[in-house]
Structure formats: C-alpha cells, structure tokens
C-alpha cells in the first residue's frame, strides 16, 4: 500500500525525518562497529584464547536471543504496515508483541549474566575463575561491554515502542498520518536487531 502525502511539503518533511534517523543510526553503527572490530582483532591475534573464552558463553541462549530479536523485528514491521493501513488495533497489538519479545530478550540476557557471574567470569566481582587466562579475560570484558551497551539500547527501544503504542492506542496519534512516527521508531529497533545479528557471530560463534 503506497503512502499518500498530503502535499509535496509533507513528503519532503517525511523524507527529511527518515534521513535524520539514518544519520543517527549511522552514529550507532560507528559505536558498535568499533566494538565489533576490536572483538575481531582479538580473535585474529589470539584465536585459541578467543575460542576458549567464546566456549564459556551459552551458545543456545545466545541463539535463542537472536531468534527472539528477529521475531520482534517482524512484529515491528507488521506494526508499521498496519499503521499505514489504518488498522489501529493490529498496530498496537504488534507493538505490544515486540515489547514483550524485547523484555524476553532482556530476561534471557539477565539469566546468562547471572550464570556468568556464578561461573566467576564477570569482571570486578568477587571470586574470579582462576583458570581464565589474560586474553580470555580481555575477550569476556569485550562481551560484557558490547552486550551491556546493546541491552541499554534495547531498553531505550522498548521505552520508545511503548510510547508509540500508548500514543496510538489512546488515539493521541492518529493513523495513517501517525504511521510515520512508528516507521521512525521501527528503524531504530531494526538497527538494534542488526547490531545483535553481528554481535552474535563476533561473540558466540568464535568456538572453532
């Protein structure tokens, strides 16, 4: 279904909004790209140590989280389509599903973190695992920084989607004009998903 602009100015404003969002997302790509680059460099320099560290991570929880995020992106995309088609309840329902999946992701992540804390892999807490080598510690620090930063971005995304869902649900944002706001929020969510799609091989799949 094509978006009908009320005027050429309207279409121009929407395009400008989208491009502004792309610019912000570009800064996020730079942020996480540098972290992922550092993880890749560690892997190239110290392949055995990086693989050992990666094996200590829970591959199945990481894989489950990837599936959860991909499904949440689907929900957000469905919300956008529904909003453009003026289907308010479907849009709000899809956003709610995405929020639920986002919270599930964070719950799984918390479970992983707790397990890693119990195994003595978390930096700065008591009882570190004495069998960890220096480079393993480096790689695991990278894991905590990257996934921690990603989790903060997830929280921000959940707040954003919740705000959109409430506004559309209560009728404060009218469809289909308000679909533009959902589309912009969706772009952020998809990027956070994309970041995880690259974090997953960089962290969990190093186990050669």
């Amino acid at each position: 279904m094509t978006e009908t602009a009320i005027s050429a100015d309207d279409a121009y404003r929407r395009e400008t909004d989208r491009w502004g969002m792309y610019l912000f997302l570009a800064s996020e790509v730079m942020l996480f790209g540098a972290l992922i680059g550092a993880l890749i460099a560690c892997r190239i320099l110290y392949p055995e140590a990086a693989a050992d560290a990666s094996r200590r991570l829970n591959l199945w929880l990481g894989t489950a989280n990837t599936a959860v995020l991909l499904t949440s992106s689907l929900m957000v995309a469905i919300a956008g389509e529904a909003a453009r088609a003026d289907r308010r309840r479907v849009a709000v329902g899809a956003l709610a599903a995405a929020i639920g999946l986002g919270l599930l992701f964070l719950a799984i992540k918390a479970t992983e973190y707790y397990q890693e804390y119990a195994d003595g892999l978390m930096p700065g807490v008591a009882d570190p695992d004495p069998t960890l080598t220096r480079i393993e510690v480096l790689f695991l620090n990278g894991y905590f920084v990257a996934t921690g930063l990603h989790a903060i971005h997830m929280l921000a995304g959940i707040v954003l989607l919740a705000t959109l869902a409430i506004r559309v649900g209560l009728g404060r944002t009218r469809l289909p004009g308000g679909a533009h706001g959902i589309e912009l929020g969706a772009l952020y969510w998809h990027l956070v998903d994309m970041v995880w799609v690259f974090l997953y091989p960089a962290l969990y799949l190093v186990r050669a």
Partner: protein
Amino acid sequence: MSKSLRRLLVVWGLLLVLLALTIATLMLPLGPVAPVATFGIAFAKALLIAWVFMRLSVESGLGRLMAMGAIAWVGVLIVLTALDFAARAMA
C-alpha cells in the same frame, strides 16, 4: 493474508533459516573460513532486515546510500584492521 504481510513473514522465515544455517556451519570443519561463513550469513541477514523490514526497497537511491553509508565505512575500518593484525600475526 495481504501481500505485504506475506512478504514480511517470508523474510522472517528466511532469517530464521539463515540462523539455523549459522548453527550448521559450526558442525562443519571450516577452519579459517569459519568467520567468513558466519559473518557472511550475518551480512545476509542484515541485508534482508534493511531491504524489507527497514523498507529500503521503497527508499530513493540517495536515501539508500545514506542508510548504508556508515556500514560501508565501518566495513573499511574492520577489514583494514583485520588485514593489519593478520599480517602481524603471520610475521
């Protein structure tokens, strides 16, 4: 089911298939090619997300460049850094 909804579901299915493929590559003795395979699959997933979910398919050409530009530059950063370290590791 509307055409656009079906398109989204197909892409989601493809993404999950790619995820399963990634796990399958772990079972194969790929050796040094393994990161190429896993990151290649990740890149394919990212392209699907960008093209369909983020609606770059209906974006203008300049808009697409704008959206993907950062990834290109980060790609340069990562590839050159990787080559640098790989050369040192060999030396």
